[in-house]
């Protein structure tokens, strides 16, 4: 048990397996079954949050955080759906435009944080408000139309595996690789660990933080595209209704990444997202009241972080 808790990533996977087992038992006891279909559902369900959370992991590892992802997702879904306007021929343009908008928002976040030296919390909250204003100003409701071809992204399966899940896995693997094997990855950890140490060691810290934010926003953009394909249109509230801002942060932290930055990784985040999704799925099976679900989520997040803190705290003191 101690060995399991020693490493937050391992701990979250242990918790994931335990939750699956307990969930399966509970559902069986309730007279239902937990089928392959449900497992697929879990992947499907977790894809959007998973992609955002992977991006959020980058921001948090770099010692920052991004509260603007939820509004950005809404914005991207609208930009994409409007550009596509139901035409398959517009898909490529739409994807490029959508990701361009995302990258731009990430750039603004990063520049405000590094060059204007505004705390990430305030900077991204401010940017979120700006996007919200733009959304409210331009859109009254769902807009644009996603062609059936692009809806494949949200609905199609390859064998039993949803394309959305594959997309999520690809994003996670890509970022994992980036963090583990590239200079940029090393520097993200350095900047998150101690920005001044990194700078004095010759790291251009501002660039790293900006790049982390651009990537984080790109992930949010991909999630926005995925959601647009699921909804068949863009929706100005899809990001905030999903609570992707705080939920993605919660998933990252649940996965053992330190909120202060510099410690953790994508593998934990994937576990964290899956854990939340399995909880969701089990609750769905049991038709548990959504308010009860919130209570359980809150408890799970706090308890998990408390467990990690006990472990790392002992060594530090």
């Amino acid at each position: 048990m101690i060995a399991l808790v020693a490493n937050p990533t391992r701990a979250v996977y242990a918790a994931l397996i335990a939750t699956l087992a307990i969930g399966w038992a509970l559902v069986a006891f309730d007279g239902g079954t937990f089928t392959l279909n449900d497992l697929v559902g879990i992947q499907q369900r977790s894809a959007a949050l998973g992609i955002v959370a992977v991006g959020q992991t980058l921001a948090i590892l770099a010692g920052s955080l991004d509260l603007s992802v939820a509004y950005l997702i809404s914005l991207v879904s609208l930009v994409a759906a409007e550009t596509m306007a139901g035409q398959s021929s517009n898909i490529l343009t739409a994807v490029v435009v959508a990701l361009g908008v995302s990258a731009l928002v990430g750039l603004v976040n990063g520049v405000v944080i590094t060059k204007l030296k505004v705390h990430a919390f305030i900077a991204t909250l401010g940017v979120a408000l700006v996007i919200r204003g733009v959304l409210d100003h331009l859109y009254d409701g769902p807009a644009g139309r996603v062609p059936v071809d692009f809806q494949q992204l949200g609905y199609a399966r390859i064998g039993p595996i949803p394309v959305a899940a594959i997309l999520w896995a690809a994003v996670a693997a890509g970022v994992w690789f980036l963090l583990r094997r590239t200079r940029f990855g090393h520097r993200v950890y350095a900047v998150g660990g101690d920005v001044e140490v990194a700078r004095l060691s010759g790291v251009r810290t501002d660039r790293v933080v900006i790049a982390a934010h651009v990537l984080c926003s790109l992930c949010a953009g991909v999630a926005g595209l995925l959601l647009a394909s699921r909804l068949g249109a863009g929706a100005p509230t899809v990001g905030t209704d999903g609570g992707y801002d705080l939920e993605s942060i919660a998933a990252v932290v649940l996965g053992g990444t330190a909120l202060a930055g510099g410690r953790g990784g994508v593998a934990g985040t994937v576990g964290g997202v899956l854990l939340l999704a399995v909880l969701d799925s089990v609750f769905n099976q049991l038709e548990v009241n959504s308010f009860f679900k919130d209570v359980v989520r809150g408890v799970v997040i706090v308890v998990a972080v408390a467990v990690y803190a006990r472990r790392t705290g002992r060594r530090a003191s």
Partner: protein
Amino acid sequence: MKRAIPIFVVLAGLLVAIAAANPFFLEPAGFLAFLKRVAPLAILAAGQYFVIVSGEFDLSVGSLVTVEVVVAARLIDGDEAMTWPVLVLLVVIGLLVGLVNGLVTTKLRVPSFITTLGAMLILSGAVFLWTGGAPRGALSQGFRVFGREGVWAVAILVLVVVAAVLLMRADFGRTLVAAGDNEKAARLSGVRVDRVRVFAFVLSGLSAAVAGILLGGFAGVSAQVGQSLEFQAITAVVLGGVVLGGGRGHVVAAIAGAFTLEALFTLLNLHGISGALEYAVQGVIIIAAVAVGGLRLPSLRLSPSKV
């Protein structure tokens, strides 16, 4: 206090601009209405200030305000006799939630961002679990007096400001700031860091209870009453020049931040920038204010040094 001067200048400018656009603002009734409207946010900002200056966050105050109002409505259910017992209970709930937030943060060493994010989920989930999804019951007239009648709200606001200033001048306040500035040094100087932080969270919880009583009184029961108040309170505190991360800033400036925010919205509305673009303007102003405040201060490193 020196770094707080800009916020007062900005606030004064905004108030003048409002008065110019709407002379009614200068009449006692108009200004009283403004004060009444600011009171809940100003009180929340004061509570949030204690937490932020000690180096923490409290994201749970919005949900807590909702909980207070919903609980009050369900328990009072229109019965005047229940007013005072329920008021006492609300204060106790606020104190308790703050206590739990504080203990989880300090004793279990969960970052307060996460503790209070969890508390936010738990509180709003629990209260609607209890009421089945939407508020039930009704508040009594006796309860609503505090929020409906301007004099009461203003009196409570004045009381809170005075209490906050006195607290910050007392040993508690000074040690709280020191703990936020350098926890280790404070600990090694004999400061009960955990205890003062827990107390800060308790004060924040209390402020949410008071704000809840005022807001519930003002407009009655509603599920959205506390929505996004935590972000407003944090924004107000930061606008007042208080630094996220702790150790710097003045409580009066934080409260002035709340006034500024409220004045800003009033002004935006007066000039017809309501609705959509209002948020965009807000976002830009918040970033700009913090950027201007921050650029003046050299960022000195606080990481371990050999010396």
